[in-house]
């Protein structure tokens, strides 16, 4: 393990940051402050965090409809995120995108995506740009178990393999695509098993173990940086909340959820860091307080920001 102590604490902090952000979004959504659809990342924080800890601002990620975690892990500004969720002028997209389309191209965040399977070709394309320009930047594609069955995913992986593109496909297997369980959407135990069809490495990792995710991602990302082509890393995880806020989740067992809550990635890393004496209870408290402060500030920023003026409705369609 090559993670420094700072990195470990950083990862822990990021995960808590995502968790507190998402939990607050759930409340704000329930209160009617956030319109539209929101898909929360609670329970899956170790994936985005472990992966993005390997990336710089010059690397690219493509995200999904469940994008808040990816954005925060890649360095997204929660003020602009929250403002965007509120549909405010000061949001990442001036309120035009909302939860499903937050992007920050300056940080290499190529956007959340409302189309399941929309991201993989885009990620391969960003990777192509890195290869073409001859730098050692990479692209990372987050995609779900449901998205793994989309044709675009197959096409993008095959093209990436053929062209040895510096892209890492990170599958977030949370066992469900809305109500459709992976036991019904695929016949193989692992999505990573499909990597063999492209002659690229396919790795399964415990997606609730941030360090394990980091390690697997480090390998794939370094490989990509070295020009050795793409890989597929499947992170087994679970979403604690419904598919979207408001989902009654009738399609899955409470027992299953409870089982996964036992494997919650945050207490797990917390425990580890406590054991390693990198954290103490008071340090944890301090981290959480700080995060809470930022979150409150973000919320206040969002709340107080104006809605976009409708005069801008037709702006930003074309350059």
């Amino acid at each position: 393990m090559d993670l420094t102590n700072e990195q470990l604490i950083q990862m822990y902090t990021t995960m808590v940051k995502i968790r507190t952000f998402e939990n607050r979004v759930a409340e704000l959504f329930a209160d009617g402050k956030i319109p539209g659809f929101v898909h929360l990342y609670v329970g899956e924080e170790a994936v985005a965090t472990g992966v993005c800890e390997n990336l710089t601002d010059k690397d690219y990620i493509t995200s999904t409809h469940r994008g808040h975690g990816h954005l925060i892990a890649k360095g997204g500004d929660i003020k602009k995120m929250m403002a965007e969720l509120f549909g405010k002028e000061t949001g990442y997209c001036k309120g035009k995108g909302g939860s499903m389309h937050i992007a920050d191209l300056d940080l290499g965040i190529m956007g959340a995506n409302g189309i399941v399977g929309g991201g993989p070709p885009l990620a391969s394309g960003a990777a192509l740009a890195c290869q073409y320009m001859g730098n050692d930047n990479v692209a990372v594609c987050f995609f779900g178990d449901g998205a793994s069955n989309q044709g675009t995913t197959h096409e993008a992986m095959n093209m990436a393999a053929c062209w040895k593109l510096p892209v890492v496909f990170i599958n977030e297997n949370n066992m469900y695509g809305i109500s459709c369980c992976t036991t019904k959407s695929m016949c193989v135990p692992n999505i990573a098993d499909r990597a063999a069809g492209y002659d690229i490495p396919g790795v399964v990792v415990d997606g609730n173990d941030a360090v394990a995710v980091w390690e697997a991602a480090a390998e794939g990302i370094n490989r990509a940086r070295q020009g050795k082509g793409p890989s597929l890393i499947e992170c087994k995880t679970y979403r604690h909340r419904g598919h979207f806020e408001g989902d009654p989740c009738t399609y899955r067992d409470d027992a299953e959820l409870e089982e996964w809550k036992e494997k919650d990635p945050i207490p797990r890393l917390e425990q580890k860091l406590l054991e390693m004496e990198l954290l103490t209870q008071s340090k944890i408290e301090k981290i959480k307080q700080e995060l809470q402060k930022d979150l409150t500030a973000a919320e206040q920023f969002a709340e107080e920001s104006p809605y976009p003026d409708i005069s801008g409705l037709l702006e930003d369609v074309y350059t």
Partner: protein
Amino acid sequence: MPDMTFAEAIKDAHVVEMERDPNIYIAGEDVGVFGGCFGVTAGLLDQFGEKRVKDTTITESAIVGTAVGAASAGLRPVIELMFVDFIGVALDQLYNQAGKMKYMFGGKAKIPMVMRTACGAGIGAAAQHSQCLEALFMHLPGLKVVMPSTPYDAKGLLIEAIRDDNPVVFLEHKMLYAMEGEVPSGAYTIPFGQADIKRQGKDVTIVATANMVHTALGAAEKLAADGISLEVVDPRTLYPLDGETIFESVKRTHRLVILHEEVKFAGSGAEIAAQVAEEAFDYLDAPILRVAAPFCPVPFSPPLEKAYIPSEQQLIDAVKKVMA
């Protein structure tokens, strides 16, 4: 007649038809256990079982394509595309396969299938979950395009669609799902290609679709107070399009304003305007106006989304313009 919501009326059409014909099956993402993203198919899995109510993987090309294959082999699929915006990943199977097979094969294929799909803005679902795309489907020979505006029409048109031997695209505006109205129990059909005059009037013809019909009716109510009488024509099916009823109306009112939610440019209203400019030109006393969404993706932010959706006031302004 019982009152039903638009969503219930659509479900009822499924029930009536599935009970009648064992070769009808439903397939789509989350149509079974979940009951459909908008609850339209809730309960059908329990009633008809897994064979006939199929939850699918998230693979729209395969959903549409297997329906085409199954239809050509004797079944009558009714599939759900969760949002019409997703058609971009499945269009080929719909237009190059389903829509053209009969013609390419010299008349011998029969593709009785319905693709139901939710369209429209109004719930803050942003650019990839809010479009109206009826003009795309209209332009593709081999498809029929249905767009109901009331629970009554929805049920009758869906039963007609299911019984039709051609591929039918059935567009359900999501702001209508909760709308209530009288719906007869049991089977009844509304023939395709018959526009419905939702309100009679004598000064200006308004052709409106889906939830814009209700916007038009609202405007008609308001303008009636000003002594302006609107005739509101709902085509109900965009292909086949009942030009005659529209022309007849324009011949009486001499004025036409078209109202639809999809973007104006190259939208469904363009075809209606063009047909009237050809067929009823001599009866027109004013330019044909279209009130429709502006040329941009659907924005997320509530005030922007509201500004995007054509409003009663915009329609009233257009009416006043053609009356001037």
